[in-house]
């Protein structure tokens, strides 16, 4: 039965995707992207990926919409020209799709426990996590410890992307003709959203911290928590205006956060070397190797959370400052 639900959701997803490509109104396309994100998150959940669904929820529902709308406000809302070479592109794309579909017939059956993917390292992770790390969430264990190098790399990619956006858009040169105090008002005159939003912000922050520190026991971790906390502060910025949000968390602090996260992560790795282990080997951090692993994961998840919060907020402010 659940398979049928999944198929239904995926069909809706394809319809949404076609509608996204067909519309010439970019605002509508962004709204439909929000719907696509909801559908795909529900699908991830059906496919047993609770952690991934939570990430998609934290990123896709709020931040992605906010960023795209910020970019639309600075560019234009409509596509002016029709597609070029429509027929040719369509033929190429359709042919490629057919080849891909043909290739799927060689794929192992959906959910096959004997598929090559399932028999390689995954059973080892599932078996050894209780012994080496002793936390219930295997995803966090693999993310933080077994594949810590990967995650370090990803954190640096996020950091670099943030720096890149700041380079491109930093310095906030004034492009608009709107008086600054008007832009800075935010939604202050919309009484009902403002009151409700102000009630919600602390709860979102609290939930973000819960996701951050509960990541070892349930779905969650630094990536999700960073996105949720950034979303809470973006909500504040939308309600009270850019300026007040920046006075709460000034740009210097954001830059500091962006840099601190990867530094913390790297420092934990180096601490492993100094204490006589390997880089990113947390077992030596404490006298009990299992406790050391848990401490290491806690610290690097904090580093990830700090980086993601800093980068996403930095990007948001860079776009918002450009509009002034």
């Amino acid at each position: 039965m659940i398979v049928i639900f999944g198929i239904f959701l995926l069909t809706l997803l394809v319809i949404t995707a076609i509608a996204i490509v067909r519309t010439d109104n970019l605002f509508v396309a962004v709204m439909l992207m929000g719907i696509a994100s909801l559908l795909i998150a529900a699908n991830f959940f059906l496919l047993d990926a609770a952690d991934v669904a939570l990430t998609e929820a934290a990123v896709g529902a709020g931040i992605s919409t906010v960023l795209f709308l910020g970019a639309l406000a600075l560019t234009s809302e409509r596509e002016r020209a029709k597609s070029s070479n429509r027929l040719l592109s369509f033929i190429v794309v359709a042919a490629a799709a057919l080849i891909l579909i043909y290739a799927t017939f060689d794929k192992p059956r959906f959910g096959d426990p004997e598929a090559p993917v399932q028999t390689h390292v995954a059973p080892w992770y599932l078996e050894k996590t209780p012994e080496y790390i002793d936390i219930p969430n295997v995803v966090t264990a693999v993310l933080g410890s077994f594949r810590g190098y990967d995650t370090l790399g990803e954190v640096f990619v996020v950091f670099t992307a943030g720096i890149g956006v700041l380079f491109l858009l930093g310095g906030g040169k004034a492009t608009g003709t709107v008086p600054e105090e008007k832009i800075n008002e935010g939604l202050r005159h919309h009484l009902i959203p403002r009151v409700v939003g102000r009630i919600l912000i602390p709860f979102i922050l609290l939930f973000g911290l819960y996701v951050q520190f509960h990541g070892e026991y349930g779905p969650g971790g630094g990536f999700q928590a960073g996105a949720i906390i950034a979303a809470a502060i973006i909500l504040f910025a939308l309600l009270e205006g850019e300026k007040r949000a920046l006075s709460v968390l000034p740009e210097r602090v954001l830059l500091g956060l962006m840099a601190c996260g990867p530094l913390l992560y790297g420092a934990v790795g180096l601490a492993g070397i100094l204490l006589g282990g390997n880089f990113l080997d947390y077992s030596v951090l404490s006298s009990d190797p299992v406790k050391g692993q848990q401490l290491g994961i806690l610290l690097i998840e904090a580093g990830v959370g700090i980086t993601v919060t800093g980068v996403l907020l930095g990007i948001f402010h860079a776009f918002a400052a450009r509009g002034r």
Partner: protein
Amino acid sequence: MYYAVTIATLVTMALALLRAVLGPSVYDRVLAVNMLGTKTVLLLSVIAFLYGRPDFLDLALAYALINFIGVLAVLEFFRSRALRRSAERGARQ
């Protein structure tokens, strides 16, 4: 019985998606996104129980909290667009 609720929610999601695709105005589409968001919260809560893993309610909680931001972003987008348009009109005169 969980299945019945899930099916009702899924059908409603399809209807809301149809509204989002048909439009006609941009507000209809925002309405559809909002509606789909609430339906997703319900769907995720029901499925968490269907799977017998109620600890995954965190996901529904995340959506219940974060969907709101999207709508406010749209509101702010409309507001700043109106401001920009009136300023452009003022500059032209």
